[in-house]
């Protein structure tokens, strides 16, 4: 199992040619960034070097799922995986397909990542860094993968359990109160004749969210965050 946390703690640089082994040369960030000063936060100390290894000397990756003393900001991932920024994961990460995902010159592996999984990561990171789906709405509030999925990667078809959503969004009772329509109070998607259902029935993290009610009650007018635009 790959630890999700690690997918978010590496600082990227730039390269279009995948470097797939720790032995390969570390790609330089200068192809896009003239220097690090232009992209670093104001109070960040000066950085010498031109690639990710410069960052990793302070931001030490940890193999536990807890953030180290100086974790990377998740926004670093967001900026580099946006749909219009065509930076491959291997600009910063070392990756041997099916074997190991890591960081250059670091004795750390984030787990075995196959080519299919890598494609999926790219797709999901891209939507997370976008502005379309629920993942992006969460990203705007600095919620990363682990915020919904915990520390391990979900299997295909797995959904986030209600308790995790409600941990931030309040109790079902609160939700019901908040979403009771004024005109037709009985048409409350959070209190329906289907009983208590999974949040993920309607709220989809990485695809269009859809109000399940509308599958049968096609005439209802209901909106959902991250829904069809």
């Amino acid at each position, binding site marked *: 199992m790959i630890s999700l946390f690690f997918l978010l703690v590496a600082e990227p640089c730039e390269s279009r040619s995948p470097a797939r082994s720790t032995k390969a040369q570390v790609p330089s960030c200068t192809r896009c960034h003239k220097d690090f000063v232009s992209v670093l936060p104001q109070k960040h100390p000066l950085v010498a070097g031109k690639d990710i290894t410069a960052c990793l000397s302070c931001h030490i990756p940890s193999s536990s799922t807890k953030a180290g003393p100086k974790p990377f900001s998740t926004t670093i991932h967001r900026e580099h995986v946006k749909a219009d920024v065509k930076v491959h994961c291997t600009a910063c990460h070392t990756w041997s397909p099916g074997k190991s995902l890591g960081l250059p010159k670091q004795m750390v592996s984030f787990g075995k990542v196959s080519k299919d999984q890598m494609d999926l990561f790219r797709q999901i990171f891209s939507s997370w860094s976008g502005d379309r789906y629920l993942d992006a709405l969460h990203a705007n509030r600095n919620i990363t993968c682990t915020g919904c999925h915990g520390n391990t990667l979900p*299997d295909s078809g797995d959904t986030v359990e209600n308790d995790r959503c409600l941990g931030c969004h309040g109790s079902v009772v609160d939700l019901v109160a908040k979403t009771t329509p004024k005109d037709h109070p009985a048409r409350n998607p959070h209190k329906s004749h*289907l*009983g208590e259902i999974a949040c993920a029935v309607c709220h989809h993290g990485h695809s269009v969210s859809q109000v399940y009610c509308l599958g049968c*009650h096609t005439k209802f007018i209901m909106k959902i965050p991250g829904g069809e635009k």
Partner: protein
Amino acid sequence: MKKKEFEEALSNGRDTFQSAESTILCSRRDILRGGIGLGIIASTGGLAMNLASPGTAEAGARKLPTKWDETYDVVVVGSGFAGLAAAAEAAKTGAKVLILEKMPVYGGNSIISSGSYAAWTDKYKLREKLNLGEDSPERHIEDMIKAGDYYGDPKLAEVVVRGAPDALNWMIDEGGLKIRQVLSGGGGQTAFRVHISENSLGEPFCEALKKIGEKYGTKMRLGTKVTWIWRAEQEGPVLGVEVEKGKKKQNIAVKKGLVIASGGFGRDIKMRQAYNPSVVPEYNSTNQPGATGEMIRYAQAIGADAIQLNFIQLYPFGEAETGLLDPYQAYATRIGFGPIYVNKLGKRYVSELERRDVCARAQIKMGLKPTYVIMNYKQMVKVGGEKDLESGVAKGRFIKGDTIEELGSKLNIPVPALVETVNNYNRNMKEGKDPEFNKKINKDMLPLDEGPFFALTAWPAVHFCCGGLRIDASAKVIDIWDKPIPRLFACGEVAGGVMGSNRLNGNAYPMCTVFGRIAGTSAAKEKA
């Protein structure tokens, strides 16, 4: 059937089967023997028994899984009344039970149904308390069989009827189900025996059954679709199922029994028309979107018999756009006080007292969508409440006009035609006749002579599939050689032959729960 009789029947069946096999199926048997001879154990490799699965590379010879991802004693496919009841009973015996539900929510058609449960008695003795006359198991059986035009199997009907009160009491006592202290009857139910949940919905019944199952450790997996049933050979048991969750396929081994409780095929337009050509695609369906019948095909592919699939119950008065059947739409069938059914041209098209299938076919034959049910205030308050009226109008379900003219123009119906229809109808009603459709006018019927008037859209919808997998009284699935398939059970709407050609209001609930309980108990009893 007693054990000895059963064993005899089984061995007779086997003889028949073997003689047939020697001529027809020798090649497959040879293949199987060959496979075993090469050291492949049936349950861990080798060829699966199946018909050709279209579009797959292994058509006609799918390979059995070499390993199982998981193992359960009893796997139940579907999470409506039947599946939930089966799971609960199986789990109660200590079996490890998993329910597979392909939809993201549980409950199937059951949870969207109208909460009506027919049982000739109950723990409260409601009929006696409310002084509602006589009833008996024999009478309930007779009603059920008669409603199905004598196509239903009386032995199976008897199982349902005799088990109905106990299953109801079980949900009340163990599941915390609450029912109204009233009984209804009518239609083909010749006694007051229909029990109704507090909110007139199926959900409280589902919740009660789910609660019982969970108490005994039943697990449920949503969004998980069965894509094959594994069985190695003609006389062998079911071994497990192939499932799909997201993009992932898995194989789950079944040690004691696979219970198919997957409902009907009302939402599979091709399948329903294949078995009943008159059920054209123009019909809507009242069913939930998952009612697509593939489990019937998977069971047939491993030899299961399926019967009476042509008997598809139609409901003529679903909401015209969606097929929805809800408490508002139910007003369409409260015909005792004299509402009329009209088409888009403002004309009546059938006697409002006709059977549902007759009404539905009349609508389809006209081809003018939608049709309307026209009532007035006097009629509506006789069969419902002010509250329904108000909310129905607010939600746009009841279209209101103070005069027939206003109603007609709101419905976009030629006003003069509608006025003429209503006037004729009122005049004929006074004279106690209906020259156009021969409807029997009775003294309870009220004329449409004063407003406000209300209309509701109506279009026929496929409602219930009476046919399905052939079962015996212990819910075992019977194969095409007239022999039970070891470790395979079916219950609920997916099982055929219980209702015959038609189903009465309130009978689906006991059919599902009673046969669900039997299937669960039978499955758990099988040797692992």
